[in-house]
């Protein structure tokens, strides 16, 4: 058991590869496809289950690295010649994102059961490889390793969109690939600049992210590096004006692809800002802050306005992502303790609610193969369970109190308002919430209420047990975060404090960290 716990991050990250191997060895042919599906689902479920000990043992002193405060550290030499290490660890932020990834990975795979009918083996292989790439990004604390995982996930996602996507899949897939790659190669240059600067100061060749967080880099160099990193992360988030790949990718991707794209992949961008840009380049962040806020706010309002005008449900949800992530970024960049924590929580919330909304769109798409809002109406008469789930997720997305969205948005607004200079930017955030309520409720009204007049819609079956299973964990989490967010926020206090102390030292009272060490 201790061997397992000492290497738990390896197991969590690479476990999906076992599924890949099994699926590749599994016999070909239509009659064996169910076996492939079972393997993928079971592997993904186990992948989620083995990530649970991360929470239960999170405060176990045996797995805390005393020097850095990181948990479950695995550190091996890898490429000595350049000082790159194989360095896995997690802190509170990574913990939540890792669990979100393992959970949504399982849900996305489960939701594909009947949606994917051709090239089944490959589909699940790509999905499991994608899972490895995403988990690696959230665990890597060596910049080189981080970059490797960051790029690795591009290829499977390209294929998921390009093979199983809609009519313009090839365009959407290559656009996704090229946009993200353009950002990542600039990110690589930024990483190299940090690497050489760190060597010139300390004389050590190292990509250690925590070490880089302790550097004090001259402002001008910081600004250049910030710009390089910014392109990498902002394209991934995506922030306005780099968001144009997102609607295409979302609309063309198969349902599960959209779920993962929205819930996890976009979080890699926000995670990059939180983990790297802010703590490594604090002065540059503050220098660029007005611009960053302007872009975030444009994202919030522009995304919401565009979402309101969409006729295609998936596109609507996609643009709502742009808006919601603007919200995350607003909180993250202001970097007051509460706003930053709210921004991070909002990342999780967005994963839950937008992930669920894409599942919802996928469920009615599977029944009628159209995503046009105008083709539906009155579905609540025949699909009561579905109507309930949809409503909960709509309310979660627009920030209804008692649900998760409210907590995140409230914290972001409160945190922004605590800043003496930028407090009025909170107003734009409020505007975004109002617009968000407008387009989401309007969508719900047009699809679910009214007369069920289209004969093609009459025979829709309600959710089956498999579809319901995909929603249950998300609904539980939505209520949990909405009613008792402390469970989650407790993990965030310590890392958030560290970042705030780097970015805006001494300006704000820090969050209370409970030193709860479980024996």
């Amino acid at each position: 058991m201790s061997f397992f716990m000492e290497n738990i991050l390896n197991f969590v990250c690479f476990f999906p590869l076992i599924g890949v191997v099994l699926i590749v060895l599994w016999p070909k042919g239509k009659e064996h496809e169910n076996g492939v599906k079972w393997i993928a689902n079971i592997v993904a479920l186990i992948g989620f289950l083995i990530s649970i000990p991360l929470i239960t043992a999170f405060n176990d002193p045996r797995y805390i690295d005393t020097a850095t405060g990181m948990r479950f550290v695995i550190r091996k030499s890898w490429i000595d010649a350049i000082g790159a290490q194989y360095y896995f660890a997690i802190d509170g932020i990574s913990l939540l994102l890792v669990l979100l990834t393992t959970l949504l990975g399982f849900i996305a795979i489960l939701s594909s059961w009947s949606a994917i009918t051709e090239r089944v083996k490959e589909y699940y292989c790509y999905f499991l490889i994608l899972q490895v790439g995403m988990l690696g990004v959230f665990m890597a604390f060596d910049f080189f390793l981080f970059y490797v995982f960051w790029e690795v996930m591009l290829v499977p996602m390209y294929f998921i969109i390009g093979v199983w996507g809609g009519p313009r899949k090839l365009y959407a897939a290559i656009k996704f690939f090229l946009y993200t790659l353009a950002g990542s190669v600039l990110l690589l240059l930024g990483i190299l600049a940090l690497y050489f600067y760190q060597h010139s100061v300390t004389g050590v060749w190292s990509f250690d992210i925590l070490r880089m967080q302790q550097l004090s880099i001259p402002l001008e160099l910081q600004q250049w590096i910030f710009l390089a990193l910014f392109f990498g992360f902002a394209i991934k988030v995506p922030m306005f004006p780099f968001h144009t790949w997102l609607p295409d990718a979302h609309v063309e991707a198969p349902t599960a692809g959209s779920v993962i794209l929205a819930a996890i992949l976009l979080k890699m961008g926000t995670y990059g800002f939180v983990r790297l840009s802010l703590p490594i380049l604090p002065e540059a962040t503050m220098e660029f802050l007005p611009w960053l806020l302007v872009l975030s706010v444009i994202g919030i309002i522009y995304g919401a306005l565009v979402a309101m005008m969409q006729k295609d449900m998936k596109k609507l949800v996609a643009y709502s992502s742009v808006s919601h992530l603007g919200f995350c970024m607003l909180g993250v960049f202001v970097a007051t303790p509460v706003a930053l924590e709210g921004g991070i929580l909002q990342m999780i919330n967005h994963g839950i609610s937008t992930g669920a909304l894409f599942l919802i769109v996928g469920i009615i798409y599977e029944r009628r193969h159209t995503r046009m809002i105008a083709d539906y109406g009155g579905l609540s008469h025949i699909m009561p369970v579905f109507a309930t789930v949809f409503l909960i997720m709509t309310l979660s997305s627009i920030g209804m109190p008692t649900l998760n969205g409210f907590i995140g948005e409230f914290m972001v607004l409160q945190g922004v308002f605590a800043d003496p200079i930028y407090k009025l930017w909170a107003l734009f955030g409020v505007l975004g919430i109002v617009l968000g309520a407008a387009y989401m409720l309007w969508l719900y009204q047009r699809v679910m209420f009214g007369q069920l007049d289209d004969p093609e819609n009459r025979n829709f079956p309600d959710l089956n047990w498999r579809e319901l299973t995909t929603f249950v964990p998300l609904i539980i989490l939505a209520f949990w975060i909405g009613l008792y967010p402390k469970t989650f926020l407790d993990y965030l206090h310590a890392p958030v404090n560290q970042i705030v102390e780097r970015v805006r030292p001494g300006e704000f009272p820090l969050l209370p960290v409970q030193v709860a060490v479980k024996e």
Partner: protein
Amino acid sequence: MPEIPQIDNLWEFFRENSAAIGPQLQLIIWGLGILCVDFLIPAQKKGRGAIYALGGLFMASIHLYWFWGISPGPAFYNMVTLDFFARYFNLLFLAAAFLTVIMSYRYLDIEDEQHTEYYALILFATAGMMFMAGAIDLVSLFVGLELMSISTYVLVGFLRSQKRSNEAAMKYFLLGAFSTGIILYGMSLLYGLSGSTNLNEIGRQIVGLENNTLLVLSLFMMMAGLCFKIAAVPFHMWVPDAYEGAPTSITAFMSVAVKAAAFAIFFRIFYLAFGDVREIYIFALAVIAMVTMTWGNVAALTQDNVKRLLAYSSISHAGFVLMGLVAGTDLGVTASAIYLLAYTFMNLGAWSVVILLRRQDIPGETLEDFNGLYFKHPAIAVLMLIFFLSLAGIPPLAGFIAKYFVFAAVLEVALSSGEAHSSLMVWVAVVGALNVVVSVYYYFRIVVSMFIRKDYLPAPLSFSAGLVVVLVITGLFTVLIGIYPEPFISLARAASLSLT
């Protein structure tokens, strides 16, 4: 003029000095041997030449292995050396030649041009490359260059019955002869200025001559000629035609080994002789690097013939390797050396898949020929995907490590304090980075054909044991250099240290 010492015992002198050219001698002896026994081999069995060639390459490798730990030092009055830089490149040439020979065997049968001279010429070309890598004197360098060039001219035109191949050879020969002439002119000017043909001696003599017009002229002439050999823009015009017309196996060989050899002398000349007058050429070289990678990529975007597409892509890769030379540091040599090694494996791999598609009566060169390859031969398609991802520089594959190093090399210079060319270096890095994105587009056009389009051409692929071996070796190294690059980095680093 240094006095030429008296040689008392010619045999003794040769025995002492030959250690430094051991691998070359092996190749030449075996190559000549092949030509001598050619008349004994029946017409249907000319493919046996491949076995003799492999024997020669094997013996040369053994020789190289013997001298791996001990450096024989400069020989023949400072003409050639077998320092680590030379050994590193020799290893690369041997690997490329070995893979080329075994991938050629079946291909020549299909083209119906199975002749033993083909294998002999590959050995001669390889020996020429080794002389180039080991040369520390303009004369030996030039002899090596010519030995390699002339052998490759013939090889490019080896498909005698094809108009395309003849045209390619003619074009390559004429332009190549011009460029050699230009290099030679540059060399003669340099000899006039410095009074020596030894690279180190030239380096010492030309210090302080930065403003001398003749030096500038000779430097740029040599640079132009070398840029022709490595296929850098604007001296790249011959590449698409020559690469398209040549036998595909030779195209593969040229794109890795010939290019690497030209880079080896590029490095020798520009580090040893022109290391102290960087100011003259650094800007021009940086511009050439940027233009080369950009133009190669842009031109590749619209190609529908895979051989031409890969030809343009190889132009763009030359631009990336040049980044190491632009940096002009130890790390620069390491970067280019590791780039060339990674490129050898991933590019030979990609070319061998193209050879696989060449079937009786089917050229197998267009994008459509790749359609649906995945559904019929998933393993081949996945290998090709790996080669392309590696060529594009996606981790964790060899091409990524290569790209990482060239970016690191220029950024290191850009960030070092007191560097006058910081912004130039940053530009080179940024242009290189954006070119990575462009290249993905055209590599993925082929990937889309292989994995997403379904109308598969129903002719069986021309598998052969040799080709499978090549695919396995190249695939293995492409992944290995990406995941565990440590030993390869140390080799490249040792090579760079012995150069500077």
